[in-house]
């Protein structure tokens, strides 16, 4: 145990004496939060939406047909209460619900005025906004068709409701993404590079020829980066709450616990990379290509996974950041508890165990 503490202390010395890297580590999350502040526009195709048609009359069916033929939507017709709507949103498969009130056609033909309610999941503000725009356009299109035919000023009002993120703040989208990115970057990149550095400098040679359990060498490397990542996480959360006015709706404790899980996933991956490479530059390239790119491209943080080709959608399942992104959005924005994210958590736990076992198996007690 004394050995282990001495080792961890040594690692902290390394981290704190490398001022440039340290500055980078703490500067990066701040820079990224600011950079990703520019929201991105997305196009949506084949999104599954739910239609609650309480009217079931000529006019409502006509509008539903129009929604159906557009390339943007795949429609499911179910009647559901508001409570049920909330539930399908939480599952995350449905992003938009269109509600026709009873007597829709009646209101329209007799009062010349009827209402349709559009309820969107706006935890991803781009998707939410785009979806309601598409739907409104189609409805307006029907309205002008009617007017053109009969020259009566029919009016259909769309009542748009954004839930989870009524003000469509972009931050809700990128803060979880930046969290995933920063945690993965620090943990994967820094651990793998710092272990490989010992190999390159020849200090690993001396450490191997010592009674110290070699696997502990590697574990004690991971510890400083575990704590650094948690500090970074706190910085990001503080920035998002006080600078971007994005409150954390769910439990902060749960958020930290899930983040700790992702950090451990990332550390195991970093160990795996460092056990498989022998130069710092190789480790860095693998960490960047293998972690950064998939995290940015395939986690759903920049580009919605629903829009990707099926092959990429399947691949996105092995990207830890995808699951973490879902978890963080659920906790921070939707304010959900553990019962809503246990499946994603389980997947991350499984990935971590797999990576840990693999990296321990690959660990060499000799040089070659």
């Amino acid at each position, binding site marked *: 145990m004394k*050995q282990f503490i001495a080792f961890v202390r040594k690692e902290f010395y390394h981290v704190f004496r490398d001022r440039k890297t340290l500055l980078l580590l703490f500067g990066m999350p701040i820079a990224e939060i600011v950079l990703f502040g520019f929201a991105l526009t997305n196009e949506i195709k084949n999104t599954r939406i739910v239609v609650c048609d309480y009217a079931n009359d000529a006019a409502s069916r006509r509008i539903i047909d129009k929604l159906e033929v557009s390339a943007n939507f795949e429609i499911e017709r179910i009647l559901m209460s508001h409570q049920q709507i909330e539930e399908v949103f939480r599952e995350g498969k449905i992003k938009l619900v269109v509600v026709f009130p009873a007597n829709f056609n009646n209101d329209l033909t007799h009062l010349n005025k009827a209402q349709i309610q559009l309820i969107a999941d706006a935890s991803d503000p781009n998707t939410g906004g785009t979806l309601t725009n598409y739907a409104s356009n189609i409805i307006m299109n029907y309205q002008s068709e009617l007017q053109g035919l009969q020259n009566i000023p029919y009016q259909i009002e769309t009542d748009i409701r954004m839930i989870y993120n009524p003000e469509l703040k972009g931050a809700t989208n990128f803060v979880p993404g930046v969290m995933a990115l920063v945690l993965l970057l620090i943990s994967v990149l820094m651990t793998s590079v710092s272990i490989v550095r010992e190999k390159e*400098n020849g200090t690993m040679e001396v450490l191997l020829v010592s009674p110290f359990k070699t696997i502990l060498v590697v574990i004690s490397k991971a510890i400083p980066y575990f704590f650094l990542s948690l500090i970074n996480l706190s910085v990001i959360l503080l920035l998002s709450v006080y600078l971007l006015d994005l409150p954390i709706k769910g439990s902060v404790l749960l958020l930290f616990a899930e983040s700790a899980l992702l950090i451990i996933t990332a550390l195991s991956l970093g160990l795996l990379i460092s056990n498989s490479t022998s130069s710092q530059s190789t480790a860095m390239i693998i960490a960047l290509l293998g972690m950064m790119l998939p995290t940015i491209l395939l986690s759903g943080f920049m580009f919605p996974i629903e829009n990707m080709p099926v092959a990429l959608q399947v691949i996105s399942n092995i990207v830890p950041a995808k699951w973490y992104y879902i978890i963080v959005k659920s906790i921070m924005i939707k304010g959900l508890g553990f019962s809503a994210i246990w499946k994603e958590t389980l997947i991350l736990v499984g990935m971590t165990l797999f990576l840990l076992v693999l990296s321990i198996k690959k660990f060499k007690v000799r040089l070659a």
Partner: protein
Amino acid sequence: MDVILQNITKTYNKGETHAVNDVSLAVEKGELFGLIGPDGAGKTSIFRILTTLLLADSGTATVNGFDVVKDYRAIRNQIGYMPGKFSLYQDLTVEENLSFFATVFNTTIEENYDLIKDIYAQIEPFKTRRAGKLSGGMKQKLALSCALIHRPTVLFLDEPTTGVDAVSRKEFWEMLKRLKVQGITILVSTPYMDEAMLCDRIALIQNGSILSINTPEKIISQFPQKLYSVHSAQMSRLLTDIRYFPETASCFSFGDAHHVTFSENKKLQNELLTFLKTKNHQDVEIKEITPTIEDCFIDLMK
């Protein structure tokens, strides 16, 4: 016998590069044993096999009676190893490096201070300096202190004096002699032939094979021929001219003189002198000398 190698062979690149070829040697308890050979002779490979860092392709090796493959953990507890490259933490101070290695080896600086006192005392004034900022000689003293801090029974020093100035090299060998008195078996490798004389026994190694194992004195006494040193005012022309002399068996440049042997071990120094005078050499000086280890090495390489 503290260290035994039997028929050790090691290849790299899937058998294409032969680093160590069927090497056998034994080091006795308390001996200062030198592995002498040029770069690429296989010294580091042998050290890494003995320190359990590499697996040999074939052959067996033991350290303190423990097998380097099966009982590698036991060996790692007992030996001290100083790799060829300076392998301490450059961003830690002198004292932090030493106390880190002491802790890793389950001991403290205080416990074994008497063993390293001689060496460490010289760098102790700089104990708050980062290891990366030390001079070559001081780095090497620190590395040796770190390798000794747990009182190893066998010490492996891989080219400890490479890249170190002449004064520090001399000091370093004096330190080794004092450690030998403490009963520590020391295996040291070096490309410097002049250091061979400071060892109890040496193994001359070239291209992965051992040329000879013996005490330095015996190796020198086994030099098969009379050896002459030749000096003149024009040294570079002298080398070509001596080689042109029909009875010359070998002639090599050695510092400020050329070392010459004659065919069939004849004593032809006077004939050579006359020959060189006909070639217009001034101040020619020829004398018989005792061979050095380097002469023996070159002779054995043939």
